[in-house]
């Protein structure tokens, strides 16, 4: 099957701590930190959005792809719930910035937090079907949580980009499975600024049932068991959910550790499991199997089995690793700066 020939991630440098948000709303920070396993989250500054994050992640994917000419990329798909325009594509700006225009197909995908993995899935499928030599799947978000809502403690920003191809793979996709039902657990109506969610209903019946549905079906289809994998990556709306779903499926903490970024990154929505995959590829060895399962409210999961090739040793350090972006040169901001950055203050212009 087709697979990944280049990957890259990008994260904002700014972070806000759970305590800083809790202080403003009189919330109990220790209970959020313990209950949701969140310590801090990334915050995009005003000059960063889904398009700029996508361009930077894609440039890193091109560096790791080494020999891919952008003109040979036949499609760019960006999955996000925070496309900067309501009407005007994000993908065309990325295509222009990397020099892939004009003979290319672009589409912006939306499916809550699953939009990124579906961009990867469609890119992979086009290449697998022989429609094009390379296709780019991008997962990017600058997500919004309403002030004082539980989501405000987690809604974060980041991106990962994957160039799919058939030759010179970094990771071969061995199998996939997608699982969808109509689930009203999280939504944002047209013209509304902040999303709404159904509280605890978003857990058991939505996230856990859907993630397990896709994961169990893919394990069955592939004839594999959790112990066959070196690593696993799940959607991470907080630190706790992926930990619990991994345990209930039979994966260990050691398997999810490299891609378990939410406690320090927050929920990057469409970016969550794809950025986790980039961090996992960074530490993988040739021959490792990686299990990945996204989740998007509404609701659905896309699950993938990746087999890492020997090319990983050659490319992983050609550009910055995801954990370096997560761990180093962090700028902590207060709630006032955060409110300004996320345009939560009414202005007179």
């Amino acid at each position, binding site marked *: 099957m087709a697979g990944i020939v280049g990957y890259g991630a990008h994260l904002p440098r700014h972070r806000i701590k759970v305590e800083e948000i809790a202080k403003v709303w009189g919330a109990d920070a220790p209970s959020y930190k313990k209950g949701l396993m969140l310590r801090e989250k990334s915050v995009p500054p005003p*000059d960063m959005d889904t398009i*700029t994050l996508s361009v930077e992640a894609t440039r890193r994917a091109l560096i790791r792809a080494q020999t891919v000419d952008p003109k040979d990329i036949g499609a760019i798909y960006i999955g996000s719930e925070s496309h900067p325009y309501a009407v005007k594509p994000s993908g065309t700006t990325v295509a222009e*910035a990397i020099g892939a225009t004009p003979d290319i197909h672009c589409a912006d995908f939306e499916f809550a937090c699953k939009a990124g993995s579906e961009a990867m899935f469609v890119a992979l499928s086009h290449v697998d079907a022989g429609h094009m030599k390379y296709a780019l799947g991008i997962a990017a978000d600058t997500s919004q949580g309403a002030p004082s809502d539980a989501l405000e403690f987690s809604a974060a920003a980041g991106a990962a980009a994957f160039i799919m191809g058939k030759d010179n793979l970094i990771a071969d996709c061995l199998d996939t499975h997608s699982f969808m039902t109509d689930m009203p657990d999280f939504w944002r109506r047209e013209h509304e600024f902040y999303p709404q969610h159904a509280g605890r209903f978003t857990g058991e019946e939505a996230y856990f049932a859907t993630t397990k549905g896709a994961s169990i079906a893919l394990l069955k289809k592939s004839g594999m068991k959790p112990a066959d994998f070196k690593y696993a990556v799940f959607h991470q709306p907080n630190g706790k959910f992926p930990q619990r779903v991994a345990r209930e499926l039979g994966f260990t903490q050691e398997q999810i550790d490299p891609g378990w970024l939410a406690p320090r990154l927050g929920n990057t929505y469409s970016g969550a499991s794809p950025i986790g995959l980039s961090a996992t590829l960074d530490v993988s060895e040739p021959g490792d199997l990686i299990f990945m399962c996204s989740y998007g409210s509404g609701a659905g999961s896309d699950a993938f089995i990746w087999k890492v090739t020997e090319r990983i040793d050659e490319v992983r350090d050609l550009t*910055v690793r995801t954990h370096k972006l997560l761990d*180093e040169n962090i*700028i902590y901001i207060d709630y006032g700066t955060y409110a300004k950055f996320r345009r939560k203050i009414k202005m007179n212009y």
Partner: protein
Amino acid sequence: MSMFSSRSWREYPQRYRMEASRFKKSGKTYYPPRDIDPETGDTAQEIVRLPDTGKIVTYTVIRVAPSQWGDLSPYALAIVELTDGTRMMGQMTDVDVEEVKIGMEVRLEFRRIQTESHEGVLSYGHKFVPNWF
């Protein structure tokens, strides 16, 4: 379509891909690209992409910014010498202005440059960030 969006569109090659003109006779590179080499009058050129790293030659700090950059002030505007010797001016971002120094190593990053209004077109291009990796 406003003047702003058409102008922005015409400048994509230099704003999005850092394309510059390198003249055959003098070997000099100009950014933004020029049709004629001002020193030799030469028109024979090739389009090159500028490197994405360099060092600050000099800078100034903007504390009272035009409204479209008000949410970023204070910020530095720097003249940077890229690794190929080309000098260009750009806005610094992701850095406290007190940390900006002559000789600081910087990297170009794709950013939102400005917007025409709340309803208008978004303008993208590059800014300088500290080159920490």
